[in-house]
């Protein structure tokens, strides 16, 4: 049993018993879908269908449906890719890194955060495939598969290939980690269920028997996977940043990118977790499990990572000036004062200035303020990637080729598609899977004899 001093704020409030926990969380899975859930789910599916029109048009007609051109070869596609991958960072960070650091507060949120990670990585992984001119070939030519083309092999020099490995490894490990965590909870639901539901959850729970030996293996696997996943938290976005850092384009070619991208990813990932959790705790009445304390802790992480990102922005500028490279200096001046100044200043406001509001306790413990700021941070992080990709490309070395990028309806539509996909998956998850890790959270519930009275 979890032991805490009485000085500490309890992590679970409301004097929950173990039974309460099982009941509160399984209730969502077992009950009929609520009207709210149904509406939200149908809305997500609607967005998904709407977006799929744009996706279909792109796949049918070609990448020309987007606003890209001879100068700006990537824009919304890779912006969205990096943005979704960034969002996908929080899950693993929360479950793996915080597990290793024994941060028990993570237990209330890790399940949903991991689910979010997986769905975000699915959304992200779509873009490298659909942004290809010939995805029907590229989808497997980018893999080092033995082939009959002679000695034809992938190019291990290419950061895009590294991406393939980084993303697929991250996705695989996150998925396994998430699923292993779900097994005891599936077994709990199985034990309460009857009929067909019982068989389904029975199959999902892989015959979990709750024996001590099983629990011991479960704990070991969780720890091993946490150990495996921890370096991935750092590696995925480091490798994604190599797409830019190893290039020769001013504004891309900088060594600061790996740490700066990782910080940015955690920053946006936490913001997205907050957005989702604030809604989930309200809808599923889980206020006792996901407390203001959780929200405050996450907000502190946002202040830290937001500040790291801010310092990175300033460092980039300093380096551009200090390097004495004219094209590099111009690239950064152009970000601030060029035609995309609004994107740059949106990024600065959203990512650097707004998280600083969390220094005020009142703001970081306010549900409404946190919710709004979490949205702002995600908008800011989208702009960060847009600024890096588009403003660097649109005016690089030869002024003759300078051009503007204007998004088309298909650019917007494909982005909407990923939103639709993400929320459809998330709502399915929220309805049919236990959104909080019951097995783990029970370990931090205080016993009934010490019922919290305040």
């Amino acid at each position: 049993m979890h032991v805490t001093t009485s000085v500490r704020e309890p992590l679970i409030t409301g004097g929950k018993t173990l039974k309460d926990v099982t009941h509160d969380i399984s209730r969502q899975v077992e009950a009929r879908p609520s009207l709210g859930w149904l509406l939200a789910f149908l809305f997500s599916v609607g967005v998904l269908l709407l977006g799929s029109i744009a996706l279909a048009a792109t796949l049918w007609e070609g990448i020309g449906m987007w606003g890209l051109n001879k100068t700006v070869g990537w824009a919304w596609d890779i912006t969205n890719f990096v943005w979704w991958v960034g969002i996908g960072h929080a899950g693993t960070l929360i479950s793996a890194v915080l597990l290793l650091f024994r941060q028990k507060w993570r237990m209330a949120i890790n399940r949903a955060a991991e689910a979010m990670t997986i769905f975000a990585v699915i959304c992200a992984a779509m873009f490298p495939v659909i942004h290809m001119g010939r995805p029907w070939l590229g989808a497997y030519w980018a893999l080092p598969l033995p082939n009959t083309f002679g000695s034809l092999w992938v190019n291990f020099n290419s950061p895009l290939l590294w991406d393939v490995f980084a993303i697929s490894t991250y996705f695989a490990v996150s998925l396994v980690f998430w699923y292993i965590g779900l097994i005891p909870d599936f077994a709990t639901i199985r034990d309460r269920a009857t009929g067909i539901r019982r068989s389904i959850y029975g199959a999902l729970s892989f015959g979990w028997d709750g024996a001590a030996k099983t629990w011991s293996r479960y704990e070991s696997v969780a720890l091993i996977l946490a150990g495996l996943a921890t370096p991935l938290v750092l590696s995925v976005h480091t490798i994604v940043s190599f797409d830019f850092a190893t290039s020769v384009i001013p504004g891309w070619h900088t060594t600061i990118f790996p740490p700066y991208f990782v910080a940015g990813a955690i920053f946006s990932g936490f913001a997205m977790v907050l957005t989702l959790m604030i809604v989930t705790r309200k809808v599923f009445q889980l206020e006792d499990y996901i407390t203001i304390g959780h929200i405050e802790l996450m907000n502190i992480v946002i202040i830290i990572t937001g500040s790291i990102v801010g310092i990175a922005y300033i460092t980039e500028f300093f380096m551009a000036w200090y390097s004495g490279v004219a094209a590099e200096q111009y690239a950064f001046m152009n970000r601030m004062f060029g035609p995309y100044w609004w994107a740059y200043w949106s990024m600065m406001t959203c990512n650097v200035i707004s998280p600083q509001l969390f220094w005020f306790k009142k703001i970081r413990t306010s549900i409404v303020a946190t919710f709004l700021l979490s949205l702002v941070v995600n908008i800011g992080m989208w702009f960060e990637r847009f600024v890096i990709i588009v403003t660097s490309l649109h005016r690089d070395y030869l002024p003759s080729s300078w051009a503007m990028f204007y998004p088309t309806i298909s650019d917007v539509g494909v982005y909407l598609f990923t939103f639709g996909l993400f929320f459809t998956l998330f709502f399915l998850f929220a309805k049919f899977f236990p959104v909080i890790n019951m097995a783990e959270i029970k370990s931090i519930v205080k016993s009934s004899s010490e019922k919290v009275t305040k």
Partner: protein
Amino acid sequence: MTENKKTYWKGLEQLTNDPEFVKNAEREFPEYLPINGGNEEGSTRRDFLKLMGFSLAAASLAACEAPIRKAIPYVNKPVDINPSIPNYYASTFSSGGDYASIVVKTREGRPIKIDGNELSPINKGGISAIVEASVLSLYDKQRLAGPHINGTISDWATIDSEVKAKLAAAGPVKIVTNTVISPSTEKVLEQFAAAFGGAEVITYDPISNYGITKAAETSYGTAMLPTYNFEKAGVIVSFGADFLGTWISPIEFAKQYVQGRKISKEKPEMSRHFQFESNLSLTGANADYRTPIKPSQSGLAVLALYNALAKQAGAATVQGAAVEIANLDRAAKELWANKGKSIVVSGSNDPNVQVIINAINDLLENNGVTVDFSKPSYSRKGDDSKMNQFVAELKAGRIGGVVFYNCNPVYDFAKGAEIAEGIAKAKVSVATNSTMDETASLVQYVAPDHHYLESWNDFYPRKGEYSLSQPAISPLFNSRQAQDTFLVWAGATTNYYDFLQQNWNTTIFAAQTETSNFQEFWDRSLFNGVYSIPSVSAPVTSISDVASAASAVAKSYKPDNASTELAMYVKIGIGNGTFANNPWLQEMSDPISKATWDNYLTVSQKWANENGLRMNEGETKKAKLTVGAKSIMVPILVQPGQADGTVGLALGYGRNKAGRVADGVGVNAYELADSDKGFTNFDVIEGVSIEITSDSYKIAQTQTHQTYMGREFVIQEATLGEYKEDAFAGRYQPKIYKEGEFVKPSKISLWKGHQYSQHHWGLAIDMNSCIGCGACTIACQVENNVSVVGKQEVLNRREMAWIRIDRYYSSPVEATSNKELEIAADNPEVTFQPMMCQHCNNAPCETVCPVAATTHSSEGLNQMTYNRCIGTRYCANNCPYKVRRFNWFKYHDNKDFAAVNVAQNDDMGKMVLNPDVTVRARGVIEKCSMCVQRIQGGKLTAKREGRKIKDGEINVACASACPTTAIVFGDMNDTNSKITQLLKIKEDTISAVKEVNEERAYHVLEEINVSPNVWYFTKIRNKDKSEA
């Protein structure tokens, strides 16, 4: 029923278990199916079933419908046609007086590429964009499929009998034509005219140079054009003559001009070029000193120059209002110092101005040297006053029969509307135009002529210089060569080919002494495409003084005209509009404005500022341009270098019956011209008003950023004085700190570096020689099957050009901030930089491709494997030169692009495709391959012949098209190659990084050490100090 347990035997053998029987019991049939090669041992029932199954599967698979691709072998192979082996035929391009001697490349009987004929003494292997592109017009489906009577298709017999009968009865017959430079055709026309009661031939030119011929008549007694020799001029002064781009014979002039502009340490001298003009022309962009003047001042400027020179010469000056024109005094001084080796030309069509120009060249003793009237050119014979008279007669209904010989005056003559009205009044109207254009659609009989690549003809562009054209393909349509048509109508029994040979036999062959065998003479002339006869020089002397011309000029020009003036001009791509229906030309980026698919009103930056017009990424406003009583809506383009108080508008656009490519593109400026003063005048100095409307419009430009932002790593330039002092003048030589010293960027690399043991291909591009004409861009498009994408896709910044000419304006001298650097100077210096794949040895594109679709060859080329490309576009992003192009859509066989990308969509247009180059699929990247198909072809030829490749044997399309040899291609491993010598590569090394000792040679973006195989030579301007 009890079970029957009886055993039946097949025979006693079975009952007795005879060993012989048991052995053969399995073999019921003694004969076996002849499968498995008759080997009885391995033949089993299973084999049979396998074979049967296979046969069934094969039969059913074969029954599935496979696309039928017909490749029909020759039953009797033509002697000269070998599949995949090109044939080359010398021929001649001519349209009106525009002329180029060419070599036509044919593959399997289809002309696919046109190159300049190096034997020609006129264009000397040079070629222009229009000539390059003319091969596509051959396959234009808008050409008439047969003779038409009143708009409906007919047959030749009917049209022949009707026209013959009607013309004979029509009364006075006039034949209207553009300049005819074919002596045999002239004879045919004479014969035709004689057959119809002495019909008169009226010659006009859409872009008239009547002023020069008329002035020659006044000054020297004969109406003619002189031969210009720009190469002999140390000082060149041009008043609005765009002689490098569009004036009379630009290919020839560019070749000459550049001889005086090429510079090296051994010859550190170049000509000095002054240009006085209203619109920024290609020639003005190349000038050392360019002064914007108004058309209303142009005559006075010429007068002022005359007076300044007359003062020096001690001749009488003439009266003329004083006019303040920068650089004019300086030009006069330098002209005088270069007496006998200078040249003064004017683009004016005013005969009086041209008389003064003649007087100036006489004063300067240039007559007979740089301006050679003793060797007249025949490229312009148009007579504007006769044409005016014709229009008046036609309108008055005094003409019985009118025959338009391959000309379109309804569209391209100032009084086109009056002609359109008058045609109906003629009893018989006939045209030989090959499309149903603005004129042909109004006449009763259209007897379409062949395309020039289907025709026999001869040409006499200049005294002593003949050339021939021969068919490179059988006629594609039921057309008939116009000369044959005229001969038939004139009642002659001979065909034109015989007529032509006969004419050569009696004239040129008779005049030469080299051979006495006509067949030999004919074959050789046809093989060479050109024939020169030494001609006796007949110097001309002035027979009139300038006073009367001067007083006329003084009267009609003004020193300061308050009203807005319109100066119409010709664009290099579209020319006079004859070839407007050619999508390659429509999409050709204008060398100056970089605009495609449009004409527009060019206005000065000052005017735009005053009127609150800002152009952003091609987005502009439309203006209502009113000239006299006519007004048209036309988009505005802000043009640095435009003279204040003037606007420019290109001719050749606004066609409505050219075909589906050109119809509705731009506005027709011919309507705004006038010919009231007896000559066609494209300058309007009174009654022009411009009103900006609220209509937004987008002009599709391939380059929207005007300046090079002072980036020395892109453009390196110096003045001649600086160069003479230091050959490294203007060079930007970045050094990078490494271990205690500053070293060249090429000394620091992550890569081990390539070794090229065989060839090391490279390009050397002299920015001093490049005049920006863009012939290379079209040559590349033809050679490499580059798609045309249409205006909307150009607006989306997705043109596919593999080679582009970057045009940079200088910024104002005092520019300090980035914002100011972005703005071009009001009268900027212009630099052209051809930009194509740089074939980097440390190519950034190669490292980033995830599937290794772009790789490095063992000969220094950066290769693109389309089949392997999955289209991530990472290579294009990482290309610092932005030369990679992506196939955003399927451009071939796609009805969305059928109207513009004719060469890849229409069954006839596809005949122009180069079979050696893949048409790229949707979703792949493409780029300059350094014409790898030509390199491979050259290597194979050399290998087959068991020898080494000779330098110059292989040439890339851009370099071979370049009229100024600004682009040199070659093997940098070959110590004797031209490129090695130009770059002064001293070491004999196979390393990818070559030590280059030529001071002017540089790499664009040297400091990032991508190590290109393309070298640029600094731009040197012959001026005292740089203004940027």
